[in-house]
């Protein structure tokens, strides 16, 4: 019996090793500067340097409950070291953290910043975090899990 168990354990561990995916580490996905993107009539935004385009309709609906007025909205976007995308726009209460998914961006975290809404939000790259500015407000550091209180600016 002990022999059978040992044999099974050996086979299972061998299978697990064989199935684990190849990973290239470390990697840095961070953008040096945020991108400021303006949506077209269909709610699509286009990032020309990194060749990225997506629809912000679901994001606007999530934030404002309105997905009809989608043209000419300016969103600010940055990517952190880990590869997460941070999106925000003026009057947004939240910063949205997305991760790449098959054919889209998947919401990873919705970070509440201000109930009153942000006046003039902007991102800075401050590896390993992302800095959020809002006019004269004190800058805040963000990560995929939310606001990093006490982290060095």
């Amino acid at each position, binding site marked *: 019996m002990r022999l059978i168990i040992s044999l099974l354990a050996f086979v299972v561990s061998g299978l697990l090793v064989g199935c684990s995916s190849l990973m290239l580490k470390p990697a840095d996905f961070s953008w*040096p*500067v*945020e*991108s*400021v993107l303006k949506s077209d009539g269909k709610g699509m935004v286009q990032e020309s*340097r990194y060749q990225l385009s997506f629809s912000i309709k679901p994001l606007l609906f999530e934030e404002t409950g309105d997905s009809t007025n989608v043209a000419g909205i300016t969103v*600010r976007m940055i990517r952190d070291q880990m590869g997460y995308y941070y999106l925000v726009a003026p009057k947004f209460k939240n910063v949205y953290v997305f991760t790449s998914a098959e054919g889209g961006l998947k919401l990873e975290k919705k970070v509440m910043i201000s109930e009153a809404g942000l006046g003039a939000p*902007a*991102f*800075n*790259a401050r590896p390993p975090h992302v800095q959020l*500015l809002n*006019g*004269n407000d*004190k*800058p805040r550091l963000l990560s995929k899990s939310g606001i990093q209180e006490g982290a060095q600016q």
Partner: protein
Amino acid sequence: MRTLLSRSFCFIVLISVPFLLPAQVKSDYQVTQEFEKESQAIAQAVEIANTVVECVDVESRITTLEETYKEYKALLDRALYPDGFDGRIMKLRGQISYAKGKITIIETQYARISELEAQVRELTGQVEKLSGENSAMLGEVKRLSASKMTIDSLNAVIIKLRQGLRDRDGLIFALVDSLFLQYDKDAAAMNDKEREGVAARLERKNVFSSIKKAVNDNLQFLEATSLTGNDIAKLTAEQQKFESKWKAFGKKLANVYVSGKSARAKEVALIDTMLTQWKGKLDGMFWKSLNGVFGSHQVSVTAFSTGEEFYANVSSYLEEEIRKARDEKDGQRYFRFQAFADSVWDAEVKPAWIPAMIEGGKLTRAQVDTLEGMVDEWSGIVSPPLTMVYVIIGIIMVVVVFYLYRRYLKTKKSGGSGEGGAPAS
């Protein structure tokens, strides 16, 4: 007192507010955008800069940009892909340096063009002044020739007129050169606007009239004067110079007046014809005078009227003389050579006529060398060898001295015997 205190408090609060409020933090995006905006503005300023002063101003803006954003170098290096901060500054400096070089060239050219324009104005004035003077002198020559006035005054006017014609001819082409130089390019490479510009300038400066007048005056000069010898050779050289300059100018004109039907294109053809007349007249005088040079010294070279004929006839004359010099042994052969070499060939033909013939393409350098070789050969035959001459002279001198000595001795002897044999009276 209370009012004073409250006022002081208000003042302190007011001046402290800016320091108490947190300074607005610039986002990296904003910094990048501001840098981009300024560098684009500088690039545009480079594009529209028209003077070196403007370039210097733009250069100073680049330096300020570099100084201002140096602290963001790390950010801009990452943000401005692929140039980076240094790359962008270098690009701007390169652009301004190129523009500055271009503007410097333009400004230099502008100065050069202005200089040439002034030169053209001055030359035009000189050409007109000389043309007037020459016309007056031509009239004077005709008047003096007709009234058979003293030859000295006629000659003086002729010399002055010749100089005037020569100066005016030179000035016309200097004027034409200055006009074309302003464009700093070959007429063939000019665009329509530039061609029109040159044509208009040629009109304004009366270039065609001046050239026609120059040729005409030269023709009249030939008709009014009976020139001979060296004068003809010199005038031929001047005509050839004029013609070669006209040919060079004619090529440029053909490119300016591309359509051969224009009035000016026809005028070009007319000037060509006038030049041919001038050349023909001068050629006739040239050969007549040169034939006269041989004839006046009784050198029997068969008459010629072209360069080829000159070469052929002089060659046959020399061949014949060389043959005779070999066959005959009399003293006449040396005198015949002397008449040819000293009075004709070395005195007149070689220094005055041969260069004009070579320059005019009437004779080649090889043909001249051949003729020279024949003259040398003739000289070698008729002239006694140099050492032999000295030996002969030496012998003659010895004979003369010996003869004189013998005579002296004889005289002394006879004198001595006469003295001794005379009876005392």
